[in-house]
């Protein structure tokens, strides 16, 4: 699919999609759960054009964005604190590490008690998900700051706060952003998961409703929409990243994780 070159893989995808269409049209698979691709796409366009999906997408994206922003900021702040003031790390790291391995869906039921079924709960769940990858990457980033760069600041008489803001923070940014990129993918998924488990809002809830109602085309259309959304968000973020830290890519570095 890249650069218009048609390879065997393209034909494989085309064949599978054709098989999907034909198997449903010609009743090779005879099930109400197996609509044809064309029906699914028609449902997708219809639900968008009828104005049913857009507000749901908007709500899900808002919860995702708010949670991602809150979690990322918290991750960067805590990461910087852990590295620059080791006491905080000594005192708080075990508490953080005890929370990390809890699978996110499991924190939804208790959070529902405290925050209800609506936005505050869902945003908190997303924030909690986004927090950990950003924290890990920020700490890696601070560890990778060149000692020479910090000493350079000292030799010119630059104070510790200014050094943190103008040397440590920019040097850490590529790592933190890589963490946010990972968190971005998780955030969309978790926002949808939270909607599936609790409340009556957003794409996730719509998906479950369509399953219960046995409206298979709408259900598959929702999944396609989510995939496109996830792909587009990732692409958009990478584009922003490439502009924001162009110097990092010019150095030919990579910060994954």
């Amino acid at each position, binding site marked *: 699919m890249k650069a218009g070159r048609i390879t065997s893989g393209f034909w494989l995808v085309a064949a599978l999609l054709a098989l999907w269409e034909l198997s449903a049209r010609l009743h090779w698979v005879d099930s109400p759960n197996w609509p044809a691709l064309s029906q699914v796409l028609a449902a997708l366009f219809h639900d968008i054009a009828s104005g049913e999906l857009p507000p749901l997408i908007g709500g899900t994206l808002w919860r995702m964005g708010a949670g991602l922003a809150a979690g990322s900021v918290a991750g960067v702040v805590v990461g910087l604190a852990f590295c620059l003031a080791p006491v905080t790390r000594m005192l708080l790291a075990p508490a953080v590490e005890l929370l990390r391995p809890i699978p996110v869906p499991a924190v939804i039921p208790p959070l529902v008690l405290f925050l209800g079924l609506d936005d505050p709960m869902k945003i908190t769940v997303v924030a909690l998900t986004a927090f950990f990858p950003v924290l890990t990457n920020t700490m890696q980033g601070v560890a990778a700051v*060149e*000692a*020479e*760069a910090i*000493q*350079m*600041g*000292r*030799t*010119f*008489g*630059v*104070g510790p706060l*200014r050094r943190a803001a*103008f*040397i440590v923070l*920019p*040097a850490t*940014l590529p790592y933190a952003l890589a963490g946010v990129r990972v968190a971005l993918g998780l955030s969309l998924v978790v926002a949808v998961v939270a909607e599936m488990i609790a409340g009556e809002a957003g794409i996730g809830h719509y998906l479950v409703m369509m399953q219960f109602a046995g409206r298979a085309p709408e259900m598959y259309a929702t999944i396609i929409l989510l995939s496109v959304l996830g792909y587009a968000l990732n692409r958009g973020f990478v584009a922003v990243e490439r502009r924001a*830290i162009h*110097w*990092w890519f*010019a*150095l030919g570095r990579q910060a994954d994780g």
Partner: protein
Amino acid sequence: MAFLELDALGKFYPQPGGAPPARIMERVSLTVPEGEFLAVLGPSGCGKSTLLQMVAGLTTPSEGEARINGRAVAGPPPEAVYLFQQYNRSLLPWRNCRDNVAFATEHRLGRKPARAAADEQLAQVGLAGFGDHYPWQLSGGMQQRVAIARALAAEPALLLMDEPFSAVDALTRIQLQSLILDIWARRKLTVMLVTHDVEEAIFLADRIAVLTPRPSTIGEVIEVGLPRPRDAIATREAPRFLELRHHLLNRLLARDAA
């Protein structure tokens, strides 16, 4: 009262597991008058960077003290600027050259004046018009010029240089040496240069202090006595130059001076 005094400086690092501390350096004493160009010569790993960092206030000495204008060094002194061995690590890759140079002064002067001054400094090291370039767009020699411009922007009275030319090619090194001599003469700086390059030390310095192997101390201080201004080619062919080179290489390679 001399401008810079090193008074019985010593450094040791604690060892893990209760072993006796590793002694890097002991009883380094030296006085440097204002305006002198001093070179400190020693083999790799003998503690040259450590010594220079103690003078720059970036490392605290384990024994003794360094004094500038009679005041003991505790933390980076305002008179001195340290020029790093690895320019590629001390330049900030997210800032262009102008803003890198401005970094030396913007916390005191504010951003705008610092930038204006930065352009001037860049011109002085032969990089006029490169203000908008990023460090990684320049060659190694040019990057080191940016670092020099940044050091000069802080208008130091004392310039501490840690093998500043060891990472550039031989021809660039000769050009940068002449540039430093030129700036030193114009600005009436005091320079303390650390190097393992015998010819560099002779070509640049008024005096050369030779460090012994670890635990290192000053083994010998030599007056260079070559006339100034020095010439990149002619000075290197002067009999006195060759004589000093012979003597120092013999010393560093631990052969008997015949």
